[in-house]
């Protein structure tokens, strides 16, 4: 343990604790800009400087470890004035478009300027940032390089945590520009559209591709029949935009708000998750028994699908052909629901509310996304976009009554709801696979070993004497490591170390998705996930195959799992894609 003093108070911390972390022990908040709790310190911005007695220069709190007997001062007039200068210098190179910026009122730079009471341009605005990139070519995220403060968080996330390397800093010094490699657009780069860069940017330089206007227009079009669906992870995060405690489950309020916005029916993506489990569970058991192309790898995460098609096309044969939950609800809405309620499917506008930016890409990524005869999902909005729509509409979110989802497409099992967190798809699949393999029901449906935030989790599940080896990875760098392990074994002609693998591109799974409210940390991911596990515990049916909705849909409409109709509506093909299109 290390003993030191911060602002005159004695502290004791573990070796390797930064001054930034230690300051919290004495309830002091040191401002940061380039440091994000998820990321290693880049030491770029200098706003976190502090003083330590006997050390001639100021220290960066984010990247300096506390040492024995250090006597640290976090705030004094000189420190504050240096921090102010840092801010003023950043501002001299930043457009002041706050009123029209997507991060207005939710921007780390804006907040700091407010706290420091910056009231004028101290330094002239000398640089022409307008020559930097504006790029909306992915139609999922938008880069506005004029606003970039070169903190490096997005590059760090994209390269080290997602291992995609779509983003980089090109050139240097005053000309440093955030860009893919060379003079190409983001869509020509390997970007998988996970949106983690947007979620880690402190300012409005990378944001989601906003499609709220498209949805308003559909809602106001008398000829259209607008329906919506809510993804698992959205219900436990949207509350953050309305001042709820983190992890509050707001399914009822969301349904109610969507109805008030004008949606004719509100479905639940959790129901689609239950359907995915039936198809994927059967697919798994079939392959597992035949020892055919193991491991089976889950495919409900579109950023992951894009990553696999670009970086591991040799593994396409291991990929579950099952579509993602919201695509299944989309196709069911335009077939089953439309037929039952006598609605012309071409009039239906299906809007998915997702924690995800990549879903915007998924909805038209291949011809199978049109299997109802129309585009199965018309628009995919992020949690952030929906929160804005609710606020714009004047709905008093906190005080509206709860409402329930419509039709059987609006009800779900506990297994469906945990899809929104890492380990959740695996756990849901195991609950049903157990039944499929043994024809029995689990006494205890919880598989705790697959839960939690460890980057790669692996365990062996005992299914009535049969051993099922599973692995779960989240964050694409972890995923890549896991795949390389499997590929290496395969290259040597050895059998796969796993039978079933779950992958989610974002750390924490969808609760940490690229379209979620800003400010994500592991603490937040845990609380959001806890909200989902609580929702699971409160459900009568906790296994997908026991959900009355699922049983009804198969009986009335689909027929057999993996049957002909199921294949036509719920399954998918994958293709090798180029990493660079230029």
């Amino acid at each position: 343990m290390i003993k030191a003093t911060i602002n005159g108070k004695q502290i004791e911390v573990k070796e390797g604790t930064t001054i930034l972390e230690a300051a919290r022990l004495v309830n002091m908040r040191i401002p940061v800009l380039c440091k994000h709790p998820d990321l290693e310190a880049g030491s770029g911005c200098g706003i976190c400087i502090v003083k330590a007695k006997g050390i001639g220069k100021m220290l960066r709190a984010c990247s300096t470890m506390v040492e024995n007997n250090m006597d640290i001062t976090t705030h004094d007039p000189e420190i504050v004035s240096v921090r102010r200068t840092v801010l003023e210098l950043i501002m001299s190179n930043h457009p002041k478009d706050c009123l029209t910026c997507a991060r207005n009122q939710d921007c780390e730079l804006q907040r700091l300027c407010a706290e420091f009471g910056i009231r004028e341009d101290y330094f002239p605005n000398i640089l022409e940032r307008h020559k930097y990139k504006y790029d909306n070519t992915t139609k999922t995220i938008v880069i506005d390089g004029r606003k970039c403060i070169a903190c490096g968080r997005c590059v760090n996330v994209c390269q080290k945590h997602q291992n995609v390397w779509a983003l980089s800093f090109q050139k240097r010094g005053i000309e440093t520009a955030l860009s893919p490699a060379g003079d190409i657009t983001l869509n020509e780069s390997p970007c998988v559209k996970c949106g983690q860069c947007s979620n880690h940017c402190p300012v409005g330089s990378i944001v989601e591709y906003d499609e709220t206007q498209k949805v308003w227009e559909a809602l106001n079009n008398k000829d259209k029949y607008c329906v919506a669906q809510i993804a698992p992870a959205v219900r436990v995060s949207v509350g953050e935009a309305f001042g709820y405690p983190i992890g509050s489950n707001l399914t009822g309020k969301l349904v109610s708000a969507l109805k008030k916005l004008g949606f004719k029916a509100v479905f639940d993506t959790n129901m689609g998750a239950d359907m995915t489990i039936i198809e994927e569970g059967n697919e798994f058991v079939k392959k597992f028994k035949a020892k055919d192309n193991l491991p089976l790898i889950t495919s409900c995460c579109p950023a992951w699908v894009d990553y696999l098609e670009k970086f591991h096309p040799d593994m396409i044969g291991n990929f579950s052909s099952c579509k993602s939950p919201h695509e299944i609800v989309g196709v069911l809405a335009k077939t089953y629901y439309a037929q039952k309620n006598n609605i012309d499917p071409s009039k239906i506008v299906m809007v998915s509310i997702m924690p995800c930016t990549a879903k915007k890409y998924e909805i038209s990524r291949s011809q199978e996304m049109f299997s109802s005869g129309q585009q199965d999902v018309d628009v995919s909005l992020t949690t952030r976009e929906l929160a804005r729509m609710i606020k714009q509409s004047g709905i008093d979110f906190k005080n509206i009554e709860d409402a329930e989802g419509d039709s059987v497409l609006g009800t779900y099992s506990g297994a469906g709801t945990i899809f929104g967190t890492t380990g959740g798809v695996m756990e849901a699949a195991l609950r049903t696979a157990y039944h499929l393999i043994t024809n029995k029901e689990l006494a205890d449906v919880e598989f705790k070993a697959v839960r939690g935030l460890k980057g790669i989790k692996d365990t062996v599940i005992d299914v009535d004497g049969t051993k099922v080896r599973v692995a779960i990875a989240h964050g694409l760098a972890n995923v890549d490591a896991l795949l390389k392990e499997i590929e290496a074994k395969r290259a040597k002609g050895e059998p796969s170390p796993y039978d079933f693998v779950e992958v989610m591109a974002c750390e924490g799974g969808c609760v940490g998705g690229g379209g979620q409210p800003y400010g994500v940390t592991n603490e937040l991911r845990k609380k959001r996930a806890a909200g989902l596990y609580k929702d699971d515990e409160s459900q009568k049916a906790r296994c997908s195959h026991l959900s009355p909705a699922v049983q009804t849909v198969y009986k009335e409409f689909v027929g057999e799992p993996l049957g002909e109709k199921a294949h036509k509506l719920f399954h998918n093909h994958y293709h090798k894609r180029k990493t660079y299109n230029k």
Partner: protein
Amino acid sequence: MAEVTTKPSIDLAAIADKWKGKDGSLIMILHTVQDALGYVPRETSLELSRLTGVPLARIYEVLTFYHFFKLTPPAKYQISVCHGTACYLKGASDLTKELHNITGVNEGETSEDGMYSVTALRCVGCCALAPVMLVNGRVYGGVKPADVKAILNEIMKEGAQNA
């Protein structure tokens, strides 16, 4: 008269192999490529990325960080004007202006047909000759804007004779 040029070819795999596992290997490989080709073509970078597993973004981070590396083929006539203090005071910017008048190329750019490039230099080391201009490595001292055209004509004539 159309010129027949054979593009110098390189054995990238061999170069990459030579530097494999050594510190700073990426920079050394890129140096070797540029020495052979005069610039680092995008296809070469893409191929290098495949061969070494170094992401293209990292290769471009290095390529764009150092001014030394060029991403486009060198111009046939590489013109530089010294902007060291002496040359600057003696009217280097007038030379740059005149070069623009003649070739249409701004400082730091290459003409679209790949004929001319104009760059600024910091002190060539022969201040007594200020202002100094270089064409394909040949030094011209005491240049007046009115001389620029003649210098270019001379070099181009030589080029035509040698072809």
